[in-house]
């Protein structure tokens, strides 16, 4: 029921923005949806799987660059002479998801051999390596990134229209969250949550934690790759900054603001982060100071983020 109300509110956003004469509201809502997908995929390994990955933005960037590079080759030279470019969302999104999942598979396979502090740092290190790789990728803009002159085509819709793009992204987000819901409540989801609680116990039951964690890591990489591909379509731009380590930090902030391990927490977290960023930045250039203080208070002083707060309020009311 609550989910339905939330969905209706999201559907109403473009009309509200129009009626209020606030087009910026629509763009804010679009970014919230995209970041919600990214943060939810991080929450899947962090909140449900207990893996503190500090390199999640790497796969976000891979997803974005997939769209950018396919665009650059569309209608022109094929990549390496064999891979044709594409500007069709039905092609670019799956490619972005598969590529980011593959990269996550390689990085995860190596990183998951460590744990604790070392895991945090090695995921950060791999993300930095990808960051510098794209910085030095001069054929696709290097440090400046790659411009995508128009959004991908999708079923003949007018993707230049911001409201249309919003609805397409909303639709994809709904499908994503429905899929994530299935995964979290699946046999695999149960094993993953068991591993977070007690890895030694799960091993003693016969589960090899490494394989399950890697599987989850790949799924999460695919999810955030999807978000990256959507972001590239929204911004019509992909750059190394999308995989900067502070971006990984922002994803983590969204997860904790929303509530670690809560299913819809990342939506609230992404919304809270972007609203804070937008409005604090409009109010003072020192908005990061305020964000820092808020983050500190949330981390040190609360349990369960916004989702936890809502649950407590709901419990009382």
């Amino acid at each position, binding site marked *: 029921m609550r989910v339905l109300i939330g969905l209706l509110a999201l559907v109403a956003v473009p009309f509200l923005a129009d009626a209020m004469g606030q087009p910026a509201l629509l763009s804010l809502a679009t970014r919230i949806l995209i970041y919600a997908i990214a943060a939810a995929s991080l929450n899947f390994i*962090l909140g449900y799987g207990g893996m503190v990955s500090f390199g999640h933005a790497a796969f976000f960037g891979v997803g974005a660059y997939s769209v950018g590079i396919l665009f650059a080759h569309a209608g022109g030279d094929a990549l390496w002479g064999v891979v044709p470019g594409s500007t069709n969302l039905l092609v670019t999104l799956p490619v972005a998801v598969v590529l980011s999942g593959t990269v996550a598979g390689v990085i995860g396979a190596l990183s998951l051999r460590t744990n604790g*502090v070392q895991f945090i*740092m090695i995921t950060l*290190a791999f993300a930095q390596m990808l960051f510098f790789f794209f910085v030095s990728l001069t054929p696709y803009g290097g440090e400046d990134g790659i411009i995508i002159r128009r959004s991908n085509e999708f079923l003949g819709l007018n993707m230049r229209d911001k409201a249309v793009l919003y609805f397409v992204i909303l639709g994809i987000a709904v499908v994503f969250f429905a899929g994530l819901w299935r995964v979290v409540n699946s046999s695999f989801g149960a094993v993953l949550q068991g591993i977070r609680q007690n890895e030694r116990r799960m091993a003693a039951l016969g589960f090899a934690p490494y394989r399950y964690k890697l599987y989850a890591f790949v799924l999460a990489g695919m999810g955030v790759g999807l978000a990256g591909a959507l972001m590239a379509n929204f911004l019509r731009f992909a750059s190394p900054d999308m995989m900067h380590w502070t971006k990984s930090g922002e994803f983590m902030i969204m997860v904790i603001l929303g509530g670690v391990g809560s299913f819809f927490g990342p939506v609230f977290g992404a919304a809270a982060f972007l609203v804070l960023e937008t409005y604090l930045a409009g109010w003072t250039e020192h908005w*990061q100071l305020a964000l820092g203080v808020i983050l500190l208070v949330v981390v*040190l002083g609360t349990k369960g983020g916004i989702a936890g707060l809502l649950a407590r309020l709901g419990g009382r009311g």
Partner: protein
Amino acid sequence: MILIVEQLLNGLQYGVMLFLLAAGLTLIFGIMGVINLAHGSLFMVGAYAGTYVAGVTGSFWLGLPAALLAAGMTGFVVEAVVIRRLYARDHLDQVLATFALILIANQGIVLVFGRQPVFTPLPEIFSGSVEVLPGLPYPIYRLFIIAVGLLVAVGLYLLINRTRVGMLVRAGATNRDMVRALGVDIRGLYTLVFGLGALLAGLAGYMIGPISSVQVGMGEQILLATFVVVVVGGVGSIKGAFVAGIGLGVVDTLLRAFLPGVLRGVMPPSDADAIGLGVASMGIYLLMALVLLVRPRGLFAAGA
């Protein structure tokens, strides 16, 4: 040949910088079990405070105690107000809380000093060069940094291996619970370790001022490299921080200095520069990944 020696010295100078930061960070990791992303902020605070005092008084030497005092005081306050609450928390909370500290510190510095980079005046005696090899003049100031770094390394070695506090620090890095069980005032030890780390960070920040500008965000640039040093060296190991700091400092410097040139031999110069610098920047991270794959706990992991 002379070019290589010069870059080796540059690498050594960068390496001791990394060591000064990593020494504190590795002890904070190893003994208190806290991931402190804000260590780079202490480095920045030391740099700004020292540079400011040096600018006002016109004396490089008066800037030094100011840098140490500011970094030490900031460290003291941060430990008492934030870090102390993080000992029992998981890594995620530690990462996020100290990430918040970075945001606060950077904007705090902007509020006080503005966004313009500041420069430290160099005292007379450091302004020249000496000929370290025939045909290779090298800035005295950089040699001074190397000397200070090595002195600190010796000092830390004596502190850790020859004193009672050092014994507790060593024991703490290997087995935290044991130190607690010995009835030692663990609070005091933590504050001491954090304060020591802050002082070293402040010292490093102040010394780097005259050769690279003092600006907001300077802490994060070196912070990531410092983390690599700590993890490669092994969490909690001063020896590891020293070996990995110098090693990675030299590798990073040599790659940046020579890789673009090597690539120019095989590709157009503009591409060679961009790709060379990009790949050189990847170098230390690649090394870290390799080390962790062979030794998941680092080269000199305490208690391993």
